[in-house]
């Protein structure tokens, strides 16, 4: 087990190095650099100063030199300075965004897991009832609506029309922090983030439950006189969970993608918004650091999923 974790971690580190090379090369292949991003096309400047700026940012050095310079500094924890927000060291800047993203993702996934598992179980147990049909239709709708549609429709309906939730940001500007204020800003993006994942989890849980409910050991449990609630929860649901856990693990990776989009729509100050803005500004140091942290996170979550899987299903052995 210990050896397995060590091996997976080593492979993960190698993947991170490969990722950094890939991102570095891709960024330089993309047209435009940070200085290009700086020029307002309708109010152009003389380029003398901009050339000086390029020189100062080290953008004129040969590529391998730039990469190894970056890598050597990064290993010692120095990810350089953000180009767009002049002077801000990258690592603290990126780390300060981890919190908001985790809050958004964790809330979204928590809603998705709780509602998805409960609804999937109910749907399976009350198969072909009106509730089952209703939940199924709702879940298909949620699965087939891309996040850019649900986010914008949600924003329009709940913020602009109903005014139930703020249209963006994490806190109301200029007022002291309060949990209620944070929750008010969080609930809409978290709810929207949970839609697709919740619906997917529900579908998986439903079909998995249907399979399990026909198993002999469930019938045996009923025959022993176990109360139906415990039959469902203890005997059926636990076994039905196995495939769903894998799904939840991969959902976390997918949720980062969704969170990037939701953060842009809702101006949520997380990694996603930071990354999108950094790409727009060709802010190389920020893009590199943020991508690596997201990459490390996804690799860690995948490892964790495998370990949890083993914990739930004693038949599975890792290592």
């Amino acid at each position: 087990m210990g050896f397995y974790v060590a091996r997976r971690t080593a492979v993960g580190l190698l993947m991170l190095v490969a990722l950094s090379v890939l991102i570095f090369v891709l960024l330089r292949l993309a047209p435009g650099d940070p200085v290009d991003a700086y020029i307002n096309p309708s109010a152009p400047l003389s380029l003398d100063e901009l050339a000086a700026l390029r020189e100062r940012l080290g953008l004129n050095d040969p590529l391998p030199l730039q990469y190894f310079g970056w890598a050597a500094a990064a290993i010692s924890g120095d990810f350089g300075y953000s180009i767009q927000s002049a002077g801000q060291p990258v690592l603290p800047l990126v780390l300060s965004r981890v919190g908001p993203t985790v809050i958004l993702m964790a809330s979204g996934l928590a809603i998705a897991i709780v509602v998805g598992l409960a609804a999937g179980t109910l749907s399976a147990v009350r198969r072909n009832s009106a509730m089952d049909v209703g939940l199924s239709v709702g879940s298909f709708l949620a699965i087939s609506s891309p996040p850019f549609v649900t986010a914008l429709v949600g924003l329009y309906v709940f913020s602009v029309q109903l005014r139930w939730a703020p249209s963006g940001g994490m806190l109301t500007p200029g007022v002291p922090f309060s949990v209620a204020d944070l929750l008010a800003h969080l609930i809409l993006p978290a709810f929207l983030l949970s839609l697709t994942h919740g619906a997917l989890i529900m579908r998986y849980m439903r079909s998995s439950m249907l399979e399990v409910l026909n198993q002999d050991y469930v019938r045996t449990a009923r025959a022993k006189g176990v109360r139906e609630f415990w039959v469902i929860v203890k005997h059926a649901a636990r076994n039905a969970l196995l495939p769903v856990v894998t799904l939840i693990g991969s959902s976390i990776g997918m949720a980062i993608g969704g969170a990037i989009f939701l953060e842009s729509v809702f101006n949520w100050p997380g990694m996603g918004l930071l990354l999108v803005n950094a790409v727009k500004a060709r802010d190389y140091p920020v893009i590199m650091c943020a991508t690596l942290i997201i990459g490390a996170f996804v690799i860690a979550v995948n490892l964790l999923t495998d370990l949890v899987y083993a914990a739930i299903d004693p038949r599975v052995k890792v290592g």
Partner: protein
Amino acid sequence: MKFSNLARALAASTLLAGAVMPVPFAVAQDGKTITGAFDTGPGGFPKKFNPLAATGGFTWFSIYFEPLVTYAADLSVIEGALADSFEVSEDQKTYTFHLAEETWHDGEAFDAEDVKFTIDLAQNPDTGSVFASRLSDIESVEVVDARTVKLTLSQPNSALLADLTQLMIMPQHALGDVAPAELATSTWWSEAPIGTGPFKFDEYVTDQYVALSADEDYRRGTPKVDRIINRYFDNPAAAVAALRSGEIQFTYVEPDDVATLRDTEGVRVIEGNSYVVNYVGFNQRVDLWKDVRVRQAFLYAIDREAIITALYGGAATVAQCGYVAPHLVPDGITEYSHDPDKARALLDEAGWGDINGDAPITWLTYYTSPQAANVMAAVQAMLGQVGINVVPRVVDVPTYNGIVYSNDDAGWDQFPLIYAGIRNGPDPASINIGLNSAQLPPNGANIMRVEFDDLTAAFDAAMSETDPAAAEGKWQEVCAEMNQTLPWAPMWVSSRYGVASDDLVDFVWTPAPAGGPYAAHPELWDIAQN
């Protein structure tokens, strides 16, 4: 009944979600606060804080910093700001500024040394200043006394005052000890900047907002509101959503949204001249556009009036040269009214079939708005009718700049044609950088590589004219020359828009290029409290 617990849990979690939703999010703020999206739209410079390195955002900068001089709110004249008054010598080589009595936000007195310090900083490219070349004609800055500064120029420069409007004066006592090269990356700008404007810098919450509070001893009177907050939005649509939900009181708005907002209760639409002329640029380094008849045919093929009516709601003026302001456009210039037959005839004469025929021509742009996409689709269809086959290619700004500024000869095919805009006012010299042959990259922004000797001569004559009355005639000659030689196909100058809550009182905003600055007098802005 057996699953009642599970059903209850599901119902409870739904209820919980519903119960959290209506939490009153408009948490009450102490005192009067105006919240706006001041850096949204083309004039903004969001999340950047160093005015010496700024290419926009001057509406916001000038709320807590101040320049020596600024434009009047209608952008018609340049008037005093931190300088109460100023004089220009007859030979246009000496500028004398008489400074206002003012204190910095930390209580220190503002004086002539600060002005000299700022100009020195701005002339030093090590500071990351984008003003160095624009201020290079300033030979010396003399502190006559604490309240008087004299600038001596090596040669007359008709654009100097316009350039000075964007130069925010900096406190020597706060920045004098910082090495110029470190200034560009200093966190002072976003953490504790000190200005002389009507509002003081409070805090910047990264990527979210900047808050300012009233400077109670501002020389023109204590501001009427306690705080002004500049919220950042990723795009104008998000800012409009926040405006509609009552969270902010002001934002720039895309022309597409104007019609619906005009019918919305509680808000008013502010319309102003964009001072940006849109054009279709011909890359002069490719062979397609060598014949002026092809360029003329291009203009005759496009029904600009119809596009303005249908896609701009009439809120744009057709341009026959780089300008539309009546005093810069001479009588008797050619009006390239829509005439597809004439376009076809001109193309035939020029031998378009041999030059290019119907081979596709890439048409590059950085405009990503739905309106621009519609405009380009309309122009594409109109050009198609006369046998010019253009294919729009939309890229983001860094990609666009990366392509058009490249001096690689192999790269011209990447942008044989562009759709762009360039600032054409209030100072008419603004377009010189894009058309004068002395401004070819890397010197300037003549990205279409226009090398028309007569046009360059006309620009040089207008730029060096020191008598304002005579200068007008010289700019008319530039217009006439552009109209005849068509270095690009001028399209129009459109309006730009902001939208403000009816709660705002005495609020002044105009869509000035780069955000101005202009005399907005934020100290007079007020908000009706409900």
